[in-house]
């Protein structure tokens, strides 16, 4: 399991066409101990170097050309899951509803209260951290699952379906002992503590349980 990145490593992207706002926010974020990257438009943000994806995007609703909501849509389309905190000079309810529905962390009205903003950023960073953690866990789980042999995968499919060893043996036309043997391997390779644990993992991996025999 990877650790939550240190605050210094957290990157906040600021997209606002107003230089004062960009500069002010950048400074505020720096004062809170994070790093800040600024972009004057949506296009600039989309064409940034992909070296390190930010942990949070502070996005102005009213942007020239591609608007804030448009950018949110584009990010979703390209699978960029960076949490978004919207800022707007003059909020309106339809826009805020649309933004929140599309998964924005917060919708704040300028001039934004320092505590509110920092809290929203923390929440976003936390969400980002969780997202990233889940991604790490999933890839480990997938690695473990990949390390299973084809037979073991078959057995696991039966196991998580809730079939008894005997039933599995009959199904696979192998001995019960062989089933037990495979099962032991599976539990160890998958690092599952219990059957329930394994079932949860399978669910995460979206392995379909075999209900054919039921």
């Amino acid at each position, binding site marked *: 399991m990877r650790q939550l990145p240190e605050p210094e490593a957290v990157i906040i992207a600021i997209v606002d066409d107003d230089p004062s706002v960009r500069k002010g926010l950048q400074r505020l974020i*720096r004062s809170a101990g994070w790093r800040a990257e600024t972009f004057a438009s949506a296009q600039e943000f989309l064409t940034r170097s992909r070296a390190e994806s930010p942990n949070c995007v502070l996005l102005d609703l009213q942007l020239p050309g591609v608007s804030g909501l448009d950018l949110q849509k584009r990010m979703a389309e390209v699978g960029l899951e960076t949490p978004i905190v919207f800022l707007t000079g003059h909020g309106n309810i339809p826009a805020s509803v649309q933004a929140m529905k599309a998964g924005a962390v917060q919708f704040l009205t300028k001039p934004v209260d320092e505590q509110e903003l920092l809290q929203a950023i923390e929440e976003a960073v936390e969400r980002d951290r969780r997202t990233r953690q889940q991604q790490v866990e999933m890839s480990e789980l997938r690695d473990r699952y990949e390390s299973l042999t084809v037979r073991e995968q078959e057995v696991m499919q039966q196991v998580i379906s809730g079939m008894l060893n005997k039933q599995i043996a009959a199904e696979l036309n192998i001995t019960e002992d062989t089933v037990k043997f495979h099962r032991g391997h599976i539990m160890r390779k998958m690092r599952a503590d219990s059957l329930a644990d394994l079932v949860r993992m399978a669910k995460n991996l979206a392995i379909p349980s075999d209900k054919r025999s039921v």
Partner: protein
Amino acid sequence: MGTSLAAEPLLSLAVTVTSEQRVESVLLSIVQGLASQPGVALARIWLLPSADLPSFCHVVSDPPDCLCLVASAGTPINSPGEDWSFLQGHFARVPFNVGKVGQVAASRHPIFVKDVAAQNDWVVRTDWAKREEIRSFAGHPLIFRDKLLGVVAVFSRQPLGQEEFTWLGLFANQAAVAIANACTEEALRSSERNLVAFVNTIPTAAWTTRPDGYCDFLNQVWLDYAGMTAEQAQGWGWAEAIHPDDRTKLVEEWQSCLASGTPVDTEARIRRFDSSYRWFLIRGNPLRDESGSILKWCGTCVDIDDRKRGEEALHARELDARSLLDSMPGFLARLSPDGTPEIFNRPFLQYLGKTVEETRKWKTSDVIHPDDLAHAIEVFGNGVSGGQPWGLEFRLRRLDGIYRWFQTRWVPVRDVEGRILHWNALTTDIDDRKKAEEALQSSERNLKLMINAIPTYIHVLNTDGSVHYVNRAVLDYMGITLDDTQKEDYRALFFHPEDVERLRAERREALLRPIPFENEQRVLGKDGKYRWFLIRYNPLLDEQGRIDRWYVAATDIDDRKKAEEALQSSERNLSLMINVIPTFIGVLRTDGLVVYVNQTVLDYTGITVEDVERGEFRSRIHHPEDIERLREERRAALARPVPFENEQRMLGKDGKYRWFLFRYNPLLDEQGRIERWYVAAFDIEDRKSAEEALQSNERNLSVMINTIPALIHTGRPDGYLDYFNRRWLEYLGTPLENMEGWNWTGVIHPDDVEGIVNMWRTCLASGKVFEHECRVRRADGEYRWMFHCKVPLRDATGKILKWYGSSVDIDDRKKSESRLRQVIDTIPTLAWTMLPDGSNEFLSKRWEEYTGLSVDESHGWGWQAAFHPDDLPALLKKWQQLLTSGQAGEQEARLRYHDGVYRWFLIRVEPFRDETGKIRRWYGTSTDIDDRKRAENALQSNERNLGLIINTIPTLAWSAAPDGAVDFVNQRWLEYTGFSPEQGLGWGWTAAIHPDDLNRIAEYWRLIMRTGEPGEMEARFRRFDGVYRWFLFRGNTLRDESGTIVKWYGTNTDIDDRKRAEAQVEQAYLRLTEAQRVSKTGSFITDLVADEHNFSDEAFRIFEFDPAAKVTFQMCRDTIHPEDQPTFDAVIARAMTGTDVEFGFRIVTSRGAVKHLRGMARVMGQSAGHPVFIGALQDVTESKLAEEALNRARSELAHVTRITTLNALTASIAHEINQPLSGIVSNASASLRFLAGDATNLEEAREAVRDIVRDGKRAGEIITRIRALAKRTATRREKLDLNETISEVLAIIGDEAKRNNVIVRTQFADALSPVAGDRVQLQQVVLNLVMNAIEAMSSVSDRPRELIITTQNIDAGCVQATVEDSGTGITSEAVDKIFDSFYTTKAGGMGMGLSISRSILQSHGGRLWAVGKDAPGTMFHFTVPKYHEEGSHAPATGT
């Protein structure tokens, strides 16, 4: 006793009788002479009545052939108590053929009765004859030139023989001659007497002259009129009485008539005894003898002043009427009674672009708008047949095809019988009023609609502040109904408790004044939260300027309010900075080092931020002369924590120094120590140079006054003289103290002091120019005559500030005047001496002066040249006689005056002898006796010719007996009437009187006959050709010494022309008055200098002056509205220079009504060297008020529209403000964090605060701009940079553009000329165009949404801006309509924006128009006039 009638006594008697001149004396002499012969008892004369007999004989003429006893003489011896001696025996009449006397008369043969006793058949009373012992009778006819005059008879007590009878017959012949002669003589005398009386009694001025034009007679009427004596007027003296302007012309005409012998017929003004002049018709005819040579000129002067004035008035009125007609702001027309157009005035025809002919068939012509035609025809038909004044409003087509609204008023003009002569029509352009009314109506309607439609909160309040109406937006916001607003606690419920008291106080005062105001307050919404609102109160005023309603608009400024609060809290120096931004700003450290200067400073001086940081700029931008001084000043002042200022020159990058006022303000910390100095600099170059110019002007003036070679002094308004220039004091040789105040009276001649002091006081009281002559004591003690003049200097209100006086020495002029008078006084006598040989030795100077001959020329015998050639021979002969006889003598002769005119002189000469008795020298004088001589001559010739005058004078003249029967009419009279003399006599003249006038004149004639008073009357008098003309009949009485009326004399003067002129004047005047009344146009004729003003009735009505009052300049000025008095004074001042003027101002009449007047005045002529104006003025109050109402509505609408637009921009505005606020808040929070952390990061914190300052400023600027746009201000014209003006708008709508994905691009001209305009109004136009453009592109998705704003200089007068979009564009039909009010293509649009924008630009003198593009989209262009320094107003039509 010898024979009773001896030859010799009878002859002697005949001589005596013939020498008698009077008839009475002749008759008496005859009878008495005969009666005194021995033996004669009784002598008698009977005469036959005859026209030749003088009236005194009282001969009664009926029966016709009857002798009357006229004289009798004798001595009775036996008839006691009887007196036989008498004249006028009218009791006794002897018919022809009756008795002896009758037989003598009938037969013309004498009868001799030798013995009465023997032949007693002739004696009527034989007893008488017997008693008186009559023996013989002799009767002889009196025959002269074969005409029987009468009979003379003698009764003798002694027997008469044939011889005596024959002698008596011879005597009778002589007696007949004597009687005839005496009769003729008597008749002549009587006629002459009558004629003189006639000529003097006729009420017409009459005169005669000699053939050479020398006037030898002027009748009493003339002399009385002119107030001259006959002597004064004689010759050419009458010319004195002729008006100087007419004199030369009259004399020239007269002389040309004299030369050609044609009758004189001219007009001239003659001075009356009271020095007034009246016009006379002067006519004169030559009187010729049989051979045709002129004996005399006879003439009359008829007073035609009334007619003349009538004509002049008519002429003037015709001119007035024509010029008024053509210059009247309305259209005038005249129609025949059936409605056919006859006359249109010039402006009317110009408007229609038609000739009179083309307008005849107006019903079918295209001048009337088709929609109005049917109605017009109906009203017209009814109006013409109804015969009453009527009116109509309709549209008329202008030359260029555009219809405008007109109001026409038709008034019938009737003759005396009431028949309509024609119709007068005044047609006034009411298009503006009509449109204004329509616009007003629709704008009021729409205002209401709009109030409900617009998302702004609107209240309408009554004057007491109670709620009249609130719009839906308010009700929605507060969640209440309209009824709730009427509750008493409405305000307390919805206003924030903290605001209620404050607001109540503010409103109570502000609601009383008719000026807009605003306040800010919190209002409770239905969500239970208070929000801040800006509440604007606008009064709606009625025509009297009283408050009718209050319109109150509330704008949600909650966001702004919060922003402001944030702003206030941010930093203290921030607000300081904002307050001083618009000028040159610098920030100094406490030691005076500059740490900051704003961009304005950098731009002006051209220095860079680096220069400032290095501190190396002072010597570059400050003037070398100032540096040292400033350093000292600043060093001292910077140490003290109080603001100070100084003035210094600063070098601009253009290389020129300009003066600036520097203000230093310290920023103090909480302990009161100086932290910073804030410095603002203001350009005061213009003020500085003005001050210098002023100083030098004053210096020059003072030098000038003391240098000019004139005597100058000044006085205060109270008359205190406070200044005399140096020359004055030098002249007087006295210091100023002796002259100051009222001391100056000490140098005035004691006789003059009172006069000048009174004069000065009068002028002080009246404010009139002081002009006076008086003697002033010079330094050497001599009094000299000086002319003093003082003129008041007034301020704009007419108050006298000062008197300026100048004085001129006129002593020499004065003295030469008196010398001249002495010379004139001593003219009459010329003195000279002659040598014994008769040649001249010496001649006085006066001779030289009189004759124009020099002493040398006159010397010796040269003097003869001065005498009239006709008189010279007699003179020389006389002179020879005297020289020979050595006696003194005298002679009359004519002496030539140097101008060629001869005058009669009495020349007397006396010898001077030495001791030996020898004549050594002759002394002589020549005395002017010309006047006497002429009088004598006149006397001689007058009498001879007067009789002829009557028939020659060009006036109808007549005389009548005391009973009124006309007994004489002159030749003219007969010629005029065509009557024979018999027809005119008695009462025959009445046949020539117009039947309608006859009763009147006959009655009047009888009336004056009874009273015996002179009288006059006007009546129509028939000419020979049957034409009646108006005459003035005048009659006057001739009375004898006892006062009994002896005769009536009269004249008839033709006044027909005058009468007609009067009638025309009357009619023209009526027409004019009617036209004036209809058009509310008054006219006036004014002489400003003489302060004489002739107002028409309508002018009186307009000013509401009492028609009986005499109009004065001050009276007019007093009615002028105080604000317009400067305008009025300026107009008057211009008019004083003699130029035509046009004017427009308000008056406040005595009953307080305010009227707008408009008019013009033109120079009509000159009177005594100053201009006389004729003018028209019109009451335009109605259209002015309508115009004002429209303007108010328009500005109201413009304001509401602007507010509406701003409201629509709320989101954008909030965004624009929130952007910098956002930066401020972020930066402030960050810096707090930097400072609060363990490792304080000062550098970061400082930078953050610097950014706060910058952002705070930016927020402030945005708010200022919005406030400026939202504020309702009076229109101003200032110098604007259009680029900057547009940029400010773009700063506000930036977000609106962004939200609509619109890209805004500007293409501003670099060197754009400044324009003259109202910033807010122009920004409203730009805002409107930009918002329209953004909206037009809202549906565009297939191309970039681009908004391009371009500015450029297009020509010398204008700057053009273009707003171009790539939107949907407009159709070509719509291009024409989009500028109309309430035309809109937008779903939620009002359709007012473009209409208002266009009217804003029009009032700036610019234009706004739209053009479709080839590419999608629209271009709007507008132009604004450039700013001109001098006449800082561009042509503007709005107010």
